[in-house]
């Protein structure tokens, strides 16, 4: 199923999503990698910034200031697993509804997604130019001086950002777990066939 959402995203829209669904998102998407997760948790957010129903993007973009305005040049997802231990606390503190990343996350996040009715979706890793097209305008940036360009919190006004594939839903299903089970079975089969 294909869905087009605009932020703030509602809880009932999230509950109906299933692994394999395709999403396109418009509205507020903000980036946060490891460092930004830790800073935001420590500072308990950003004064005046409402996280309700927003979209968190695991991304460290290439940005350039042109005529006094920040422009996004390349902004594919980073490896989400680095945030695995941070995400449960993050979701408990900030009521975001969709995470975008690559490579999937582990059982801690899968549990937290269920608890807070949030989904994890995947954008094609390395497709930085394609992502830059959908992210659109930069609305604001936080922690730029402290953390540098890749780790800063960049806030975008996205327009039909996608395609994103729901790979971990809010009901405890993970596409990555399924693939991992299959590849582990294949590994055993290959070892058997090769006599390892």
């Amino acid at each position, binding site marked *: 199923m294909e869905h087009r959402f605009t932020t703030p995203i509602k809880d009932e829209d999230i509950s109906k999503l299933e692994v*394999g669904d395709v999403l396109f998102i418009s509205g507020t998407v903000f980036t946060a990698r490891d*460092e930004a997760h830790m800073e935001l948790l420590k500072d308990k957010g950003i004064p005046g910034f409402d996280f309700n129903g927003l979209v968190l993007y695991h*991304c*460290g*973009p*290439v940005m*350039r200031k042109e005529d006094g305005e920040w422009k996004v*040049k*390349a*902004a*594919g997802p*980073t*490896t989400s*697993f680095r945030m695995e231990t941070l995400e449960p606390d993050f979701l408990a503190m900030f009521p975001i509804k969709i995470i975008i990343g*690559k*490579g*999937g996350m582990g059982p801690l996040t899968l549990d937290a997604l269920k608890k807070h009715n949030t989904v994890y979706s*995947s954008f*094609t*890793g*390395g*497709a*930085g*130019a*394609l*992502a*830059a*097209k959908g992210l659109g305008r930069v609305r604001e940036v936080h922690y730029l001086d402290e953390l*540098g*360009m*890749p780790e800063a919190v960049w806030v975008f006004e996205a327009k039909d950002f996608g*395609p994103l*594939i729901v*790979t971990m839903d809010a009901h405890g299903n993970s*596409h*990555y777990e*399924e*693939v*991992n089970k*299959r*590849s*582990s079975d*294949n*590994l055993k089969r*290959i*070892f058997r066939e*090769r006599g*390892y």
Partner: protein
Amino acid sequence: MLDQEQLIDRLVKGMRDGVIELPEDVTQKLQEYLQREDSGIAKQQLSAILDNIRISHEDGLPLCQDTGVQMFFIKAGYDFPFLNDLHRAIPIAVKRATKEVPLRPNTVDPFTGKNPQDNLGPHMPSITIELEERDDAVITILPKGGGSENMSMLWMLTPAEGFKGMKKKVLEHIVFAAGKPCPPIIIGLGIGGGADFAMKLAKKALLRPLGTQNPDDKLRAMEEELLHDINELGVGPMGMGGRTTALAVHIEYTNRHPATFPVGLVVQCWCDRRAVIKVNKDGEVI
């Protein structure tokens, strides 16, 4: 005589081309594998990758936001007279390219967390020089991303474990790595030499263009067997399932100490960026 400014310009251009244009051999392999793929999600991921390659080319945008750390591999003749100029020019060019291309500032002080914003640092950028019988210098620029680099491994196997042990470790590791290094990946393996040497050989193995055959028959057979088995695992593009997990396995080797069997593994993401620049013995940059 060598014109230092021209050399720096060409190095900057090499880095720009390196992060914007994917080498033709990689695009070709991706297209080839798309034809063989039968899973819907896998096809969609490979198509997005090919769309991305086209957009980068058309709009002059970096292929991936992780423009890597810039690694330089130089093969120079024993009597090539401009090595010192080359060595001096590279960091200047990296600093300029970071601003102009732009490249993402990707070198962080491990102690302070400070990012100098210029992709430099102690011993950075990494420059490897090999001297051999030739009269010019060939510089290969490898912008190496962090997600794939994180999946590197060194196994100090026992000689009894040997090649069988190596193949098992590699396959287990690809299942563990899953989507993290941005598959379809290219795998470089270095065998023998010692811990550092094996890792160096593994990274150097990535410089060989895709689709070129290993001139060594026994290595070629091993590369083909491993590639076959890796693609049987079903990890697929971005670890989302499918037949395309790796585009190539490249192996380099040297002799080992009798007590050791080192195997280094370096992973390259689908965004297998490379650029080559040549400087001839008269200092002309080609």
